[in-house]
């Protein structure tokens, strides 16, 4: 996972906000290294991260796969069919072409990390511009660890690459000691 950001997509209006979503849905956008993780593997995390069988009560909480090219569309369709067979239930997830992504407000980004203000302070020292902060791989990974996701092995491998102080590294290890769950964070 290279970068993650949360925002809004799928609606008809321009520049939606959290309090004025119109027909947009809450969305996560991920930049990934295809030599390290496949689209199929990301879809597996997508299916495992929510319940796609129940119709949501508003478009804000829709289940949607926004495909960026024909290859993604074909993989998504096949993956949805596989999930329906596996669950024995129809899935409401829409598969639609990606058109526009609107970045959510700053306070929605890297949600888990907001519970670690000292780590945020260090990282904002490195990235004073909020857009650089959001686009940082280090910040995305640390957000995952702050949320309790990952493995101790990957954390130990990456620990010196996040640009943290010794105090920051110690805090990160303390978080890991509470227990990590292998998987991907969603914000």
């Amino acid at each position, binding site marked *: 996972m*290279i*970068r993650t950001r949360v925002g809004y*997509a*799928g609606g008809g209006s321009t520049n939606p906000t959290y309090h004025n979503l119109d027909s947009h*849905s*809450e*969305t*996560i*956008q*991920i*930049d*990934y*290294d*295809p*030599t390290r993780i496949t*689209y199929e593997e*990301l879809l597996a995390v*997508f299916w495992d*991260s*929510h*319940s*796609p069988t129940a119709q*949501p009560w508003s478009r804000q*909480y*829709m*289940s*949607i*796969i*926004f495909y*960026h090219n024909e290859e*993604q569309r074909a993989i998504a369709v096949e993956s949805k069919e596989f999930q329906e067979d596996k669950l024995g239930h129809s899935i409401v997830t829409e598969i639609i072409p*990606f058109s526009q*992504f609107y970045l959510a407000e700053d306070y929605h980004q890297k949600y888990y990390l907001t519970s670690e203000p000292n780590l945020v*302070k*260090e990282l*904002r*020292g*490195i990235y*004073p511009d909020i857009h650089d902060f959001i686009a*940082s*791989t*280090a910040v995305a*990974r640390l957000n995952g660890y702050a949320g309790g996701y990952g493995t101790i092995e990957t954390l130990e491998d*990456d620990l*010196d*690459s*996040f*640009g*943290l*102080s010794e105090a920051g590294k110690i805090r990160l290890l303390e978080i890991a000691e509470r227990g990590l769950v292998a998987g991907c964070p*969603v914000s």
Partner: protein
Amino acid sequence: MWSLKNLTMLAVLGVLAIGTVFGLSLTGCNMEDNQVDPTNNDTRVSEATIPAIDATVPIETETATFALG
């Protein structure tokens, strides 16, 4: 007795002396401003370098976009 020439010279010297003192005080202020307190965490953070993991991200990436309720 002080001549006009002496008084003028004294005035010029006085202005130079005041200017020198004023200039040194300004220089001193600037030097203090440039000093770095190594115990100041904020200063250390602002001088932090880009994390290694960010410096080595692959150029070729793909994007996936999902809404998951």
